[in-house]
């Protein structure tokens, strides 16, 4: 098999002068969708995960459990279809929202359920004594979470958060289904137009691997910087793609 890389210099005859410029733009979309979804997922996942560990709040934690079960048990692609086709039709003010935002909501909330699980596991992995110590010092619930529990819990869950951030890059590929012009969409369209599938897919695959690796390195730096000396915990990241 001989590869012809000059396929990327051809003119797709659309918005972009060449295929490689289109590919770069698609990479940009992949990165934007992934990073924004990660922010959404971290915010919602943290809130839901923390709520599940709060003492004396059975209804709130039941609600949080329902949240996790709901977003975990429906395939991501179905959730994206729900956000794209169903929610704008049923909720009036969502009508004009661009599909990019809808996909970020879908991917972000989907991932928030997994992050909520990890936040909860991280908090529960701490010895109970830490909580009681905070209480004994006269801290309010908000205070002992803010100053005692969360700073430790977030350090514990950096390894599973790393794999979740890498997952988000991989999962962003599902956005092709609602015509976000990210890399998988590019791969499918460019393959169709040029019939040089191997070159196109190779380029896209390599960019996905580079993105995942970059996130992995960034998280490794964060983990190293935030490490508490003499406190090594490994949290299990579980299955998933």
């Amino acid at each position: 098999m001989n590869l012809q890389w000059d396929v990327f210099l051809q003119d797709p005859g659309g918005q972009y002068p060449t295929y490689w410029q289109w590919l770069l733009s698609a990479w940009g979309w992949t990165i934007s969708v992934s990073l924004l979804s990660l922010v959404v997922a971290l915010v919602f996942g943290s809130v839901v995960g923390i709520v599940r560990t709060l003492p004396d709040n059975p209804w709130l934690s039941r609600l949080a459990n329902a949240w996790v079960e709901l977003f975990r048990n429906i395939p991501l692609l179905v959730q994206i279809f729900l956000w794209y086709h169903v929610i704008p039709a049923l909720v009036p003010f969502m009508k004009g929202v661009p599909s990019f935002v809808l996909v970020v909501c879908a991917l972000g909330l989907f991932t928030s359920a997994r992050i909520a699980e990890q936040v909860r596991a991280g908090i529960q992995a701490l010895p109970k004594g830490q909580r009681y110590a905070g209480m004994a010092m006269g801290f309010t619930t908000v205070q002992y979470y803010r100053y005692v529990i969360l700073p430790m819990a977030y350090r514990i869950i950096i390894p599973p958060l790393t794999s979740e951030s890498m997952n988000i890059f991989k999962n962003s590929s599902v956005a092709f289904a609602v015509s976000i012009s990210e890399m998988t969409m590019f791969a499918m369209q460019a393959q169709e137009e040029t019939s040089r599938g191997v070159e196109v897919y190779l380029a896209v695959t390599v960019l996905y691997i580079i993105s995942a690796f970059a996130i992995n390195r960034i998280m490794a730096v964060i983990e190293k910087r935030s490490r508490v000396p003499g406190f090594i915990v490994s949290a299990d990241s579980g299955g998933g793609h």
Partner: protein
Amino acid sequence: MNIDLSFYNWELIRAFLIKGLYFSVLLTIVSTIGGVIFGTVLALMRLSGKKPLVLPATIYVNGMRSIPLVMVILWFYLLVPASFYALFPYRLGENYRSEISAVITFIAFEAAYFSEIMRAGIQSIPRGQVNAGMAVGMTYGQNMKLIILPQAFRNMLPVLLTQTIILFQDTSLVYAIGAYDLLKGFDAAGKNFGRPIESYLLAAVVYFIICFSLSWVVKRLHKKIAIIR
């Protein structure tokens, strides 16, 4: 926008959903079995400590795990040659090209994930068990088959089943190559009757019920195994 409840009828299920559900379940079962078999092989290769075995297995597993599943599906659809599909009798290869490609993809892809589960399972067996097996004169193969793998499988059963539930959810991604799975059934029904909203809502409910009840069963099983041990 109002929901038209008359959309939910027997005709919808018979004409669109049964076929899709059948393929989704078949794909899940076949690729779980295939994935566990090849995954065990990969895990044993990685644990063998022999470089010509460790290296290719490691590259394969890490490679598969760093590429999005949709891209893997597209790759296999592109690369499996037409001569392979010609091997199937009764023009099956011609009529079910996407479906056959999906089965191969999922076996290959899930093998990487199952091998990581298997590796963790095998490593969770205490060293003493391995040494005891060797001390009574068992070969490596006997030791694996009679001592280690039975225990590893048992330890790993809940994780394996959880992965199977994820796998069932992931079968919806064969949408990318147009294979007819459960989601495609809902998609086609929604388009056919001009009722996409009702159709996708039902899709979400059906997937939720299936996956929620399966994970409830896994949770029960996990508790049962934990008590025995």
